[in-house]
């Protein structure tokens, strides 16, 4: 049965309540913190050795697609009606819009220590104590819009700049590529200005707090953000139908990327699944 992921701004009160309740239950069971840990452990930078799967790599989109499916499975074990909603940050662009409401993710962090004190993920509820983190902080933090040096969320035009690139990704398949849909969406740029972080990366930066660091999964908005990134991938596929995940074949021994990226039909750790198998999700879910 194909299920539907919805725009978070369109959820009914009941859908919001069920999503929040399922998230809190997955957290209570200890499963959530394993997702946080897993994301930390799979962050391999491209200036270091080793296989990159989750970031700075062609499989950025496929890895997070699978990661989302795992969280969604955990949520649906709690409540089979729940799916992960997406946050279209080209439309909901302010700190008071969806999903930052008290009946969903709660709002911005307070000025003194950026602690999120509203909504179901506030520390005082006792239901959302951070266990896996880069710091010893136990409460969720946010700094929506980066108060000290404000930035804007990516615009529809910036997203379109990524979407219109017909090539999925290109050599050297890392954070330095300036062409290809994948990195234009992931958002690694060059230089020091705002062009240095685009689209996906810029949203992490705009939310701030936990979302800025390696333990970004601690903020539930991680999933809503990545559901939208995943939706954008499906839009790109629909627009460029003859184009597919690249590289089709693994880089050879002579390449600096030898054994450092996942080609279309190679296994994508930690799962026994390939990007090829993850390209078509129409049998699992659709986006409304």
């Amino acid at each position, binding site marked *: 049965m194909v299920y539907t992921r919805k725009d978070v701004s369109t959820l009914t009160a009941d859908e919001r309540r069920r999503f929040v309740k399922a998230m809190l239950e997955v957290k209570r069971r200890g499963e959530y913190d394993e997702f946080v840990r897993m994301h930390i452990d799979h962050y391999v930078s491209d200036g270091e050795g080793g296989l990159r799967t989750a970031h700075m790599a062609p499989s950025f989109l496929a890895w997070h697609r699978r990661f989302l499916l795992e969280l969604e499975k955990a949520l649906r074990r709690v409540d089979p009606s729940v799916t992960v909603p997406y946050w279209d940050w080209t439309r909901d662009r302010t700190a008071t819009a969806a999903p930052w409401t008290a009946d969903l993710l709660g709002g911005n962090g307070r000025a003194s220590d950026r602690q999120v004190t509203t909504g179901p993920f506030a520390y005082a509820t006792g239901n959302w104590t951070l266990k896996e983190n880069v*710091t010893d902080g136990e409460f969720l933090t946010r700094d929506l819009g980066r108060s000290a040096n404000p930035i804007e969320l990516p615009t529809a035009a910036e997203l379109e700049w990524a979407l219109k690139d017909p090539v999925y990704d290109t050599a050297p398949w890392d954070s330095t590529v300036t062409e290809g849909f994948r990195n234009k969406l992931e958002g690694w740029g060059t230089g020091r200005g705002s062009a240095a972080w685009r689209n996906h990366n810029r949203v992490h930066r705009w939310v701030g707090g936990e979302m800025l*660091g390696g333990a970004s999964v601690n903020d539930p908005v991680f999933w809503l953000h990545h559901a939208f990134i995943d939706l954008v991938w499906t839009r790109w596929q629909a627009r460029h139908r003859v184009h597919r995940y690249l590289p089709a074949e693994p880089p050879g021994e002579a390449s600096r990327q030898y054994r450092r990226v996942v080609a279309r039909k190679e296994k994508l750790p930690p799962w026994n699944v390939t990007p090829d198998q993850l390209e078509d999700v129409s049998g699992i879910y659709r986006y409304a």
Partner: protein
Amino acid sequence: MVVDVDGVPVSTRQPGPARAGTRREMLRGLLGVAAGLALVPVVAASWPPGPLDGAHGTGGAGGAAGTGFDEVYRGRRIRGVLTPAGRSAADGAQWEVTVDGRPLHLMRRADGTWLSMVDHYRSYRTPLEAARAAVDELGPGEMLRGSDAPAYGDHPHDMGGRHGLHA
């Protein structure tokens, strides 16, 4: 640091399998550094004003050519030491950076810039800039995880079996 013509540390050419061990070794090294430090009390009653995105690191201090730094930045002690980290020559040199004695894990990008675990979705020209940017993000009294935290990469796949993550 041994750097090849492309500006990428030679040590980065090592393929994956040794990585987790290298990180454990690095963490042990960092803990050694931390143990040798007198901890500087953090005096921060409220969110400190200070440098902003991209506003620091205008050159010189702690630059790419340096071999270490030691400064108090916004009330935090930042130390960085370039050390021969690995057990073998192939492991090359490594930056060991601490904030108030706690290890700050830095990663290198292919363009030679640096990012930290605290500030993970952009990169900085030097380890010092990355360390200062990490301090910018720490709340009053907030500390990096200490020795009781799991080393990054120690158990990368441990959730696969238990929660059916495999297809």
